[in-house]
C-alpha cells in the first residue's frame, strides 16, 4: 500500500460509498481510536508520525493539535480546509470527489484527538461535484452512527456540516476562513491568539488541510513508523503531487514524499510537450518561488525545497516553458493576488495592484529601468511579518525568484521592447 490516500480512487471518478469504504477497511481507525485510545494518544501518535500539514505551511500536525487546551469546555471545533484556490493546485479535489469517507474518518479522528464536538468542511464554491459527494457521505456517516451523539457507543459526540464558500482565495487562510464561517468578511485574524485557543466563535479550533486529514486514518491504522517509512526522505508519508503547464501528461499522483522534480516532470508528467523547453517551475502552487533547471534534482519535500530557496507549498507544480512570457506569467499571478487581497492591510492592498500595473507596462514594452527597482522594493517589503497575513508574502515569492532567475527577460522587454 504505497498510495494510501488514493488507492481507492477509481478511473471513472465514482466516489466510494460508505459500504465500499468500510469494505476496504474504512472506519477501522475510528473504531480503534474511539474504543481503545485516549484522545491524547491519538495526538501523540500523529506527532510521532511527523505528519506535516499539507495546506502549504507544512506545520507539524500533531504539534498543532497539542496546543488545544484539553480541559477547555465545549464547544470546540475541527475544520477541514477544502477551499483549495491557490492557482495551480488541484490535489484536494481528488480526495474530496473520490474518497469522501476517508476525509470524514480523518476528521472524526482529529476531532476526537482534540475533543471537538463540532466539525465543518469548508469547501470552495466551484467544487460542485465534491459538494454533492460530501453531503451524501456526511448523511451516510450519520446514518451509520459515525457522526452524531454517542458515536459507536463510546460516548463521543460529533456533529459535522458542510459549508460551501462564495468565492475569495482568502477563505483558505485559516483565520479568514474562521471569519467567513462566522458569516463575516474573510479578513484574517491576528495571531496570537491562535485558533487553538480562540478560533471559531472564539472557541478552541483546529483547521487542517483535506490531504492532512486524509492521512490520519492510515496513521492510526498502521502506526507512526509505517507512515514515516512511506517516505524516501526526512519528511514523512506520501504526498499528492501535481504538474500543470505545457507538459505531456499534466496530472496529480500520490508518491512517496521526496521524489525529485525531475521524476515528476519527466516521468509522471511525461516530459515537456514537443517544441517546449522547461525553464522553471513553481514547485508548490502560485505562492512559491521559482525553481529552475539546475534544481530539477531537488527532492520534493519540505526541507529540500526550502533548502533550494522555495517552498513545497501544496506540492502542485506549475511549469514555465520557453514559449511563455515570464513577465506575462508573473503578471497573471500578481493579477490574481491583487484581486484576491482582502484589503485589510496597506502593503498588500496598495502594493499588489501597483506591482501588477508595473508588470503590465513592462509586458507591453513600456517599462522603465526604474520599474525593476520598484518591483524589488515590493519583494523586499511585502515579506512575511510586514503584511498582516501570508497572502502578500506568497505573492512576492514567484516575483522575487523571477527577478532572480529571469531578470534578462524583464530587461530585454524594458530596454529592447522584446520578449526574451
Amino acid at each position, binding site marked *: 500500500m504505497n498510495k494510501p490516500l488514493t488507492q481507492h480512487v477509481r478511473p471513472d471518478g465514482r466516489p466510494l460509498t460508505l459500504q465500499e469504504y468500510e469494505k476496504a477497511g474504512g472506519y477501522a481507525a475510528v473504531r480503534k481510536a474511539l474504543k481503545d485510545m485516549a484522545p491524547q494518544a491519538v495526538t501523540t501518535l500523529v506527532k510521532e508520525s511527523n505528519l506535516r500539514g499539507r495546506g502549504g505551511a507544512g506545520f507539524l500536525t500533531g504539534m498543532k493539535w497539542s496546543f488545544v487546551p484539553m480541559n477547555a469546555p465545549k464547544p470546540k471545533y475541527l475544520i477541514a480546509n477544502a477551499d483549495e484556490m491557490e492557482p495551480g493546485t488541484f490535489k484536494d479535489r481528488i480526495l474530496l470527489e473520490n474518497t469522501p469517507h476517508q476525509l470524514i474518518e480523518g476528521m472524526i479522528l482529529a476531532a476526537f484527538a482534540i475533543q471537538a464536538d463540532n466539525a465543518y468542511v469548508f469547501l470552495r464554491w466551484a467544487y460542485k461535484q465534491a459538494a454533492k459527494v460530501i453531503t451524501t457521505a456526511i448523511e451516510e456517516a450519520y446514518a451509520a452512527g459515525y457522526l452524531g451523539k454517542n458515536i459507536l457507543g463510546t460516548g463521543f459526540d460529533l456533529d459535522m456540516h458542510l459549508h460551501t464558500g462564495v*468565492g475569495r482565495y482568502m477563505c483558505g487562510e485559516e483565520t479568514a476562513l474562521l471569519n467567513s464561517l462566522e458569516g463575516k468578511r474573510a479578513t484574517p485574524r491576528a495571531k496570537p491568539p491562535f485558533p487553538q485557543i480562540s478560533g471559531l466563535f472564539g472557541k478552541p479550533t483546529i483547521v487542517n488541510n483535506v490531504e492532512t486529514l486524509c492521512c490520519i486514518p492510515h496513521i492510526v491504522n498502521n502506526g507512526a513508523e509505517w507512515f514515516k517509512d512511506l517516505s524516501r526522505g526526512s519528511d514523512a508519508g506520501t504526498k499528492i503531487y501535481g504538474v500543470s503547464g505545457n507538459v505531456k501528461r499534466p496530472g496529480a499522483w500520490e508518491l512517496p514524499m521526496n521524489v525529485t522534480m525531475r521524476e515528476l516532470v519527466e516521468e509522471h508528467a511525461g516530459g515537456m510537450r514537443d517544441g517546449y523547453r522547461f525553464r522553471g517551475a513553481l514547485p508548490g502552487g502560485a505562492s512559491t518561488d521559482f525553481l529552475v533547471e539546475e534544481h530539477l534534482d531537488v527532492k520534493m519535500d519540505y526541507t529540500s525545497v526550502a533548502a533550494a530557496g522555495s517552498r513545497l507549498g501544496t506540492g502542485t507544480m506549475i511549469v514555465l516553458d520557453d514559449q511563455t512570457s515570464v513577465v506575462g506569467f508573473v503578471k497573471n499571478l500578481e493579477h490574481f493576488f491583487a484581486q484576491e487581497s482582502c484589503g485589510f492591510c496597506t502593503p498588500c492592498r496598495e502594493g499588489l495592484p501597483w506591482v501588477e500595473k508595473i508588470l503590465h507596462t513592462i509586458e507591453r514594452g513600456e517599462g522603465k529601468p526604474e520599474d525593476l527597482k520598484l518591483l524589488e522594493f515590493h519583494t523586499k517589503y511585502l515579506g512575511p511579518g510586514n503584511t498582516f497575513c501570508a497572502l502578500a508574502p506568497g505573492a512576492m515569492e514567484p516575483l522575487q525568484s523571477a527577478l532572480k532567475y529571469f531578470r534578462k527577460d524583464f530587461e530585454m522587454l524594458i530596454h529592447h521592447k522584446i520578449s526574451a
Partner: protein
Amino acid sequence: MLTLEEKQEIERAIHQVPLRKAACIEALKVVQEHRRWVSDESLKDVAAFMDMSPAELDSVATFYNLIFRRPVGRHIILVCDSISCWVMGYEKIQAHLSQKLNIGFGETTLDGRYTMLPNPCLGTCDHAPAFMIDHDLYRDVTTDQLDAILEKYT
C-alpha cells in the same frame, strides 16, 4: 419579501451554527439560488430575517465575488483566468466566447442568457483551460467545442 421556502432553507442553515448571524452567507446563497442575484430589496429582507442591519449584511455580501449584487444572466460563465489556464491559452477561449456572445467580462448578453465572469483558479489545472457554466465544469476546452457547449444552455 422572502418566500416561505427561502425562509425554511435559511432556518436550516441557522441550525448549523451557534449564532443566527453566522448563517448570513448561507442566507444570501439561498436567495441567490432562487433569484439569481441579491437585489437591494432582497438584501434588506435577508438582513431583517437575520437580525442584522442592511449595512452589516452588505458589508459581507460585497466582500465575496460570487454573491451577485447586480443582475446577472440566466447562466453564469466563470472563466478561469489563473496561471495554468493562462499558460494553456484561456485568453483564446475567452476571446472566442466574447466574440460569440458579444460580451466582455462582467457583462450580460442582451437576451439575458449569459453573464461572463473571470474566476480565479478552478482547481483543475491539469485540464487547463477550463471554465464553468452554472454547475458544470468544462475542461481541456478548445475553441471548436464552444458552440456546442453554449447551445446547451437556454
